[in-house]
């Protein structure tokens, strides 16, 4: 087709509902805010791994949908989560990204979470244990038993990841939500404790869904030039994207020929438990959590949207807690050679999504984004993304094609196409 004028450029493509979407869902600040309310505040979110708080009184802080959160391990070894908000005057209680409550803060005591502002203190179960001048100030009108922390639903599951849901009554349990997509890796991840050996985070000028798209399709191998020209085999392209309820996708496994990658070696000696050598599994959970196991090293990325065109991505690399120092070094090398900041793939993926983000800033004109490849659900098929955006439409009650139209009103493609 020749180049197009404005009318042609903004016309809808001759594809069916779901095979294309409107780029406004990547650009519109109102939609981004609504995603926090409708999706992220009701979703199971993997906030960290239990090996990142190994000892009683260890803690980490994080946030979901702008709500600040403390995760801590109690003396009973249980991991619990609370809003990182003082019930007194709304101060952010803990400012450090991670640490231990074993030693008291300047105005607090050992083993307590202390708000530095007025020295209120809390234990690892969220009980308020100290209110400054409780009797003098409140007489008997308010006591510490009434001002505990806001506890959040928190579970350690699927290989020791810590999952939080801001909704006290989620529409689905964590097991029912992600149990099926994790089934292929459950024995592998739960056989023995895992341990985080790599953590970095990046703030990228793009929409969080675009990052998940990149993790959900394997056909951007044109960009991963070195992967493409070495190491791939027919099995690579024959894998299928398998869709699961709740918008998740699992990419089928295959055996990678690492020996064919220049400078790489077989990972068979360090395979995770119960796996044949050099397998590659990928679990993509809606709305943006990715578990990627390349034989000897597990990568997990999680997204935190910071606006329509900004996303915080946290990257973790994991091995087995029982690793010898030598094995751990090898595992780290395997991890970094693909996913480290100087690895083969990560920076290329980031170039891809940053480029998309650049063309989809909030003030740009909405355009059509095509997800229409149909190739028998193999990795060149775009069924993973189509499945994702159907789930997105359901949570948002917005059509991905015509975001002002309720998803529940959708019928066949032609009707929707005419709506905008």
């Amino acid at each position, binding site marked *: 087709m020749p180049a197009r004028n404005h009318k042609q450029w903004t016309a809808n493509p001759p594809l069916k509902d779901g095979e294309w979407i409107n780029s406004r869902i990547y650009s519109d600040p109102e939609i981004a805010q609504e995603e926090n309310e409708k999706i992220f505040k009701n979703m199971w979110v993997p906030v960290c791994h239990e090996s990142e708080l190994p000892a009683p009184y260890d803690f980490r802080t994080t946030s979901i949908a702008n709500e600040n959160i403390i995760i801590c391990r*109690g*003396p009973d070894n249980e991991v619990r989560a609370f809003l990182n908000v003082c019930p007194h005057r709304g101060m952010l209680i803990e400012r450090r990204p991670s640490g231990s409550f074993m030693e*008291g803060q300047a105005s607090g*005591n050992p083993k*307590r979470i202390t708000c530095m502002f007025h020295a209120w203190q809390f234990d*690892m179960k969220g*009980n308020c244990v100290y209110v400054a001048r409780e009797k003098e100030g409140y007489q008997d009108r308010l006591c510490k038993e009434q001002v505990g922390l806001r506890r959040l*639903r928190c579970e350690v599951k699927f290989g020791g990841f810590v999952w939080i849901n801001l909704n006290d009554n989620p529409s689905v349990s964590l097991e029912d939500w992600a149990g099926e997509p994790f089934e292929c890796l459950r024995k592998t991840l739960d056989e023995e404790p895992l341990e985080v050996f790599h953590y970095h985070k990046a703030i990228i000028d793009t929409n969080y869904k675009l990052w998940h798209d990149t993790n959900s399709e394997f056909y951007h191998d044109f960009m991963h030039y070195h992967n493409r020209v070495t190491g791939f085999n027919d099995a690579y392209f024959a894998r299928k994207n398998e869709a699961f309820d709740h918008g998740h996708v699992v990419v089928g496994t295959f055996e990678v020929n690492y020996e064919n990658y220049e400078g790489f070696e077989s990972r068979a000696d360090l395979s995770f438990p119960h796996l044949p050598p050099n397998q590659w599994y990928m679990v993509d959970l809606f709305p943006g959590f990715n578990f990627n196991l390349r034989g000897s090293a597990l990568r997990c990325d999680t997204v935190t949207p910071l606006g329509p065109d900004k996303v915080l991505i946290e990257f973790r690399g994991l091995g087995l807690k029982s690793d010898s120092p030598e094995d751990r070094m090898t595992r780290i090398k395997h991890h970094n050679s693909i996913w480290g900041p100087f690895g083969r793939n990560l920076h290329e993926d980031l170039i891809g999504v940053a480029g998309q983000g650049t063309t989809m800033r909030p003030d740009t004109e909405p355009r059509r984004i095509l997800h229409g490849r149909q190739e028998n659900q193999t990795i060149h098929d775009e069924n993973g993304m189509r499945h994702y955006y159907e789930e997105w439409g359901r949570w948002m009650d917005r059509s991905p094609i015509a975001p002002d139209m309720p998803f529940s009103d959708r019928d066949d493609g032609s009707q929707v196409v005419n709506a905008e």
Partner: protein
Amino acid sequence: MEHENVLEYKKMSWIKICSTTEVAQGSLKKFWAGVAGGIPVVAVHHKEGFVVMPPVCPHMEEPLEDSGVVSGCKLTCTKHLWAWDLQTMSLEGEAEKPLKTYDTKVEGEDVMAFITEQLEYDFEEEDDMDDDDFFNS
């Protein structure tokens, strides 16, 4: 190893904590009673003598070596102003619980404490409910 140590100081009764010159009057200092890995104590040197006690405030487990102040015969934990008279052991200031102390004596230049087992305070945390009970209540 640690277990053997426990047995060893369980056999003990009067144990030397420190010498009188190690803790100036009007101060306190932390020691480990018994052999390596023994029982943590503080020796408090007040106006009328020495008292050996667990190293934390009975209020909220504050280390007394950090926050304890000795004035005359009074020990004050400066964090929340719990205080005790170390001669009469009466509660002073904001204190709501008594101190636990080991019997203490001075023999020559040695400060001795009678220790058969570690004295501890109860800082029990309240239980919490099972997730489903909690979030549906």
